[in-house]
């Protein structure tokens, strides 16, 4: 065994040049060969890279997709994001547990299957969905889930997962030879920027005919703002990076769209990879970077071969590599960095940590990535959709781009819409479109609430439906989850808090502890045991967590609680009971004494329990 361990570890480390900054890739490759990363594999990797054991163990324990213990040869991850739960993920879960004879978190005795929950795998429009290793299985029912497992069992280990699981290919490039996925694009509305017919190379050609400073000026004139949700002006970010000192600069594309309910980047990566790579190349030219990194979330591993193929084709055509398009002095290439199932890595400093082969812990700011980013070099981290706007701005002109959308939020925005509506999928709409118009387009007119911007965004009610989707009003990275009549805002808040508890990296106390306390109190109210002071408690604790947390995760994680408190206060108030004699209504004395009564064989003398 130890020989085969060496055989697995040494060549992998060798293939990455024993570079500790590629530790995440090394561990993913080792896991693929060994099935899991146990203590001995950790020792072997640490020895091979000559780094402390704890550095390796820390990375293994951080990422959901890296397993410290032995796991089944096929790992089934059922998505438990809200849209999935609304579409019946719990029933699918029960079906899988029954068919496999195990509970979530367990492995079948024959070592064939492990069953786990996944936070959001970017398939909210075709929920419930699961990953079987890296094969996506959307639109599951309890029946199909059971049949698929039974069929995989019958085929044994030799069977090709994809052949069993993928019964028909999705539309567009989902049917490409290197993708072969049953994922659907559900592109409901193509707009003028991202999904308009593309003229390959037009933007890049124009950019290379300009100076980098002119490219940045063009992007600034278009008033392009970051599409990840924060809306920071892209041109300004590039200017900071360009102005920063350093022998090298880096461009990183954040394709770790982990905000639950977001899946628009998946459709871009599937249908417009060339537009994205062209945008990355232009950005590299603008900031003076020779290297770009596409940080691809682990959940989208099924797109990796396809994207590598697109990159290879671009190298072949001279669109990447030395002297891009024959432009002397401009070399630029892109590598794909796989993520491994950690939401916090969508936060740019955590994402940089992850690219460096570390735990995906956020870094302190300042210094900002534009000054000291990847490996200490000035780095620009941009969203997939932002980079896709760039070639179009160069091709069509900044005036064209700025004429769309609203004054301060120009261009179009991709929205990933899921939940209680008839047309779930991706919509490309001008920024500044009202929520009411969006709901009309997606068939969600009877919504009682909409979560704008994923869990870290806001839950708003009908009185906000005339507000606009843009950076200065209802800001969103693209996720809209529609809740129809009968959905409970407190349930929504509680589910989102469960998500944040799971995804908190645990580094700082306000986030690690505060989110748990927030969920406990919400659940107490949900159970009918809340009292009026609880609302004040939630508001104060939420504010503390936001103020005192170290990174964007904790600075936004109380939003589900705070925005429902603000917008759905009656739903809280209807459940509150003033305490009788000052006693907390949720304190169940009989339950707390039951065990003692059993052990002593007598009744309580004080309580009728």
């Amino acid at each position, binding site marked *: 065994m130890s020989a085969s361990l060496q055989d697995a570890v040494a060549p992998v480390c060798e293939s990455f040049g024993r570079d500790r900054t590629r530790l995440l890739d090394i561990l993913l490759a080792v896991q693929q060969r060994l099935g899991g990363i146990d203590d001995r594999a950790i020792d072997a990797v640490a020895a091979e890279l000559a780094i402390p054991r704890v550095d390796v163990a820390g990375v293994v324990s951080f990422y959901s997709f890296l397993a410290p213990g032995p796991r089944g040869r096929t790992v089934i991850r059922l998505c438990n994001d809200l849209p999935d739960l609304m579409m019946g993920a719990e029933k699918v879960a029960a079906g899988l547990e029954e068919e496999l004879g195990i509970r979530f978190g367990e492995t079948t005795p024959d070592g064939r299957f492990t069953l786990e929950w996944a936070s959001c795998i970017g398939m909210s429009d075709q929920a419930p969905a699961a990953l079987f290793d890296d094969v996506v299985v959307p639109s599951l029912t309890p029946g199909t889930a059971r049949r698929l497992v039974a069929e995989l069992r019958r085929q044994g280990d030799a069977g090709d997962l994809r052949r069993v699981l993928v019964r028909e290919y999705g539309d567009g490039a989902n049917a490409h030879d290197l993708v072969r996925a049953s994922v659907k694009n559900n592109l409901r509305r193509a707009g003028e920027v991202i999904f308009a017919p593309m003229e390959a190379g037009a933007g890049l050609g124009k950019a290379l005919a300009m100076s980098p400073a002119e490219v940045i000026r063009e992007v600034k004139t278009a008033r392009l703002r970051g599409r990840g949700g924060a809306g920071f002006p892209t041109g300004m970010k590039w200017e900071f990076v360009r102005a920063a000192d350093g022998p090298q600069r880096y461009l990183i594309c954040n394709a770790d769209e982990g905000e639950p309910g977001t899946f628009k980047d998946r459709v871009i990566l599937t249908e417009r990879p060339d537009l994205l790579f062209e945008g990355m190349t232009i950005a590299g030219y603008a900031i003076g970077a020779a290297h770009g990194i596409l940080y691809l979330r682990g959940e989208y591993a099924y797109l990796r071969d396809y994207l590598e193929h697109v990159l290879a084709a671009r190298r072949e055509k001279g669109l990447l590599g030395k002297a891009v398009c024959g432009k002397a002095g401009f070399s630029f290439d892109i590598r794909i960095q796989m993520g491994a199932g950690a939401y916090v890595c969508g936060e740019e400093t955590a994402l940089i940590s992850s690219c460096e082969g570390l735990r995906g812990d956020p870094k302190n700011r300042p210094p900002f990535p534009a000054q000291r980013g990847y490996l200490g070099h000035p780095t620009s981290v941009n969203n997939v959709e932002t980079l896709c706007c760039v070639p179009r701005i160069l091709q069509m002109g900044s005036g064209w781009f700025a004429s769309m959308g609203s004054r301060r939020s120009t261009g179009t925005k991709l929205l990933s819409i899921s939940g209680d509506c008839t047309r779930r999928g991706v919509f490309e709409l001008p920024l500044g479109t009202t929520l009411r118009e969006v709901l009309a387009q997606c068939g969600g007119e009877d919504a009682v609430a909409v979560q704008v911007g994923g869990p870290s965004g806001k839950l708003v009610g009908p009185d906000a439906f005339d507000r606009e989707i843009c950076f200065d009003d209802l800001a969103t990275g693209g996720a809209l989850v529609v809740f129809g009549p009968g959905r409970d805002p407190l349930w929504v808040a509680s589910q989102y808090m469960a998500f944040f508890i799971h995804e908190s990296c645990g580094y700082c106390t306000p986030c690690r502890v505060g989110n748990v306390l927030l969920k406990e109190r919400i659940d107490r109210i949900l159970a009918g045991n809340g009292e009026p002071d609880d609302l004040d408690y939630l508001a104060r604790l939420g504010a503390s967590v936001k103020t005192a947390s170290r990174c964007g995760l904790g600075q936004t994680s109380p939003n589900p609680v705070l925005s429902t408190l603000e917008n759905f206060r009656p739903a809280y108030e209807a459940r509150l009971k003033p305490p009788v004699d*000052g006693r*907390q209504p949720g304190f169940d004395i009989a339950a707390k*004494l039951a*065990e003692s009564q059993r052990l002593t064989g007598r009744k*309580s003398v*004080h309580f009728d329990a």
Partner: protein
Amino acid sequence: MAKPKVATTSLCGCFGCHMSLLDIDDRILQLVELVDFDRSPINDIKEIEGQVDIGLIEGGCCNEENLKVLHEFRRHCKILISVGDCAINGGIPALRNMVPLEECYREAYLNGPTVVNPAGKVPDDPEIPLLLDKVYPCHEAVKIDYHLPGCPPSADTLWAALVALLNGKAPELPYELVKYD
């Protein structure tokens, strides 16, 4: 006009917070001038006799007796204060929350190295209060108006809080009185 009334008790605590109260030194003479004591270990009154203005609770809530006393205090006290880390967080006694209750009983009454128990049974004497399944902070069982942290809160902290409340003010304590590192 009658003097305000103060009551104190120690639930699942070590009386350290009461010691800290006595540590106010000669100010205890002023305190006696300012208030009357109802139920308290200081005067050994066992039951609260009437309405109380300020109740101080030391210790968390670990058994049925604690819970009964806590309910009694809550019913009679206008202002109820959790004093010290055990009342606020459960403190040291809450370490047992990580041990199954049955093991706690067995260790205490059957298997402990100093136990002599020929009957070999967990006692069922009503004089021995039934344990709650866990040790709870007081505010989980009843509403608590103020928390005075510390292990124990210093005499100055207790004094400052009491004086503020007796003057009808909210106890807003300076940083020096509530910092512990």
